């Protein structure tokens, strides 16, 4: 069958449904949010339609800058941890027997069915002083007394990496399955160790996939607002936590919307930078 470019308006018809869905469920809500971010906050009440920059002005402070910086840093760290862990894991997974692969993938998929709340509570129990993993270390004689590992940055990071890991594997899996095995075989024939072959052949061949995965996990992690609350101290709260506070508890929709718009813009900016940098690297 030959693929022809659409000729008449009718050829575009199949696009109508997804386009309508995208408009109704994404473009309209997002537009509303941008509009609300310019509305006038009524302290002690709600908001009135207006066109003011107060909400953005309030955001531009060292305090919120710090929180935004932390959120970005946390998301980047999560993305890097996930990819560093998931790449060798997925690579080895693709070379296993089909049955083993299925078992692993089903197990990973089942993690996706857990809600953020369950993941958060489970890790906070595992990291607790009274019932946590340090008790095992004490029983083994490695530690002298049990201690709490949460709240801490490490706990937040662990929880978020745990949550994002299955996504990372699922994104990397198809690319790694399709990777031509003769490439590594050639490297081995030419005398490279398996480790060297992995770093000099597999990783460079997958550069675009890795970049795309990093971006996906980064964006995924940026929206996290429950795990930092459950596993971290207030200084580990992300911007999303503060957005929730404003929207749900302070009924300050305009400010929450302004923060959310800001977060989206910064995210898009960073993604664009990564893509541009990637293209330049390719050209060189």
């Amino acid at each position, binding site marked *: 069958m030959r693929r022809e470019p659409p000729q008449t308006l009718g050829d575009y018809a199949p696009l109508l449904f997804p386009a309508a869905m995208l408009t109704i469920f994404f473009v309209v809500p997002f537009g509303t949010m941008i509009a609300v971010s310019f509305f006038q906050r009524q302290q002690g009440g709600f908001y009135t339609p207006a066109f003011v920059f107060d909400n953005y002005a309030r955001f531009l402070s060292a305090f919120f800058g710090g929180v935004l910086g932390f959120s970005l840093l946390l998301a980047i760290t999560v993305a890097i941890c996930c990819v560093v862990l998931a790449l060798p894991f997925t690579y080895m997974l693709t070379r296993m027997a089909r049955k083993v692969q299925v078992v692993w993938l089903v197990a990973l998929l089942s993690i996706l069915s857990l809600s953020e709340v369950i993941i958060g509570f489970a890790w906070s129990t595992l990291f607790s002083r009274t019932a946590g993993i340090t008790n095992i270390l004490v029983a083994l004689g490695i530690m002298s007394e049990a201690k709490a590992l949460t709240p801490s940055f490490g706990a937040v990071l662990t929880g978020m990496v745990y949550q994002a890991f299955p996504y990372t594997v699922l994104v990397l899996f198809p690319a790694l399955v399709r990777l031509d095995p003769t490439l590594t075989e050639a490297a081995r024939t030419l005398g490279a160790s398996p480790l060297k072959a992995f770093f000099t052949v597999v990783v460079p061949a997958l550069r675009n996939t890795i970049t795309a995965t990093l971006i996906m996990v980064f964006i995924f992690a940026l929206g996290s607002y429950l795990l930092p609350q459950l596993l971290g101290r207030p200084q580990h709260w992300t911007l999303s936590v503060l*957005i929730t506070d404003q929207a749900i508890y302070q009924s300050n929709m305009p400010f929450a919307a302004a923060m959310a718009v800001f977060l989206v813009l910064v995210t898009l900016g960073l993604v664009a930078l990564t893509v541009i940098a990637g293209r330049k690297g390719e050209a060189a």
Partner: protein
Amino acid sequence: MITTSIKRRTLLGAGLAGASMLAMPSVLRAQDKSLKVGVYGGYFKTSFDKNIFPEFTKATGIAVESIAEPTGEAWLVQLEQAARAGQAPADVSMMSQVAMLKGQSTDLWTPIDMAKIKNSSNLLDRFVNKYPDGRIAGIGAVSWYITLVTNTDVYKEAPTSWSAFWDPANADKLGLLALVSNSFLLEVTAKTFLGGTNALDTEEGLLKAFEKLAEVKPNVRLWYRDEAQFEQSLKSGEIPMGQYYHDVTGLAAADGNPVRSTFPKEGGIQDSGCWALSRASQKSEEAHIFIDYMCQPSIQATLSRKVGTSPTVKREVTDLTDKEFAAVSSDIEPIVPRYDLYQSKSDWLNQKWTELIVG
């Protein structure tokens, strides 16, 4: 993108109550008279469904459909958005005092006709919520205390004062509420160290309270929004001290958990909920009958016994014994939150507070 979807998920979760309500109209039509009543989801709703609503239906013939509402101000936002569209997810809702004030600013609450509330004379004055022009916005539903709670395994002796929070010996041991408008820690600080909540009248006084409160930070292990998170840690002794609800702590202790609730000598924090009628509701008549019913001393006494809340009517008119009263309240003068501040200075307070605990 993710941010918006997370927000939407939160709203969806909170709005589940509203959605399930929309699926119910066929059930409602079966009854002649009905009323949708919003109460805090979970323990409160279960207790009301079991102990209060069936009796009310028996006495008045009005069927009650209870709606689980989220705590905090999420419900207020939903009621307001719905009222703008002419909808009432619940006719009568139990609302916090700060939410009452915020709702007043948009005339969200239908004024209550006191002539129809014959039992209103029993009420304590502070449980009648009024618009600035004197119209009645809401009537006290229940009140409850936030007290100083401890794990009895870790603290053999009960602390006697809120100042225990400031004790360096309690480093990294406290669980406190995370928001300025539900922890009321500024009031606690003012009452404990600055001679009373009047100290918060001026900005200077507020800053002084913030400064004193900052000294608590090293002792705090958890700033919680979610009650379950702290309750679990308190029971296990993971976080052995903090502020928590007197009623729920009492129930947990009755279940054999090693916890206790103490009224400090400066007083427990007394917070309360009002019954308020959404302006979009068409059931004003039924709503008045319901509110009047709930103001009866016998019902308030039942609430104290079964739900563990403190009565909003004068103690003399109820038949609560000394022991029953002590279980839900205390004769120590309570710390009454400065709700006015959370309306007139809400953004400033919120900003200062967030900077205090996050910074």
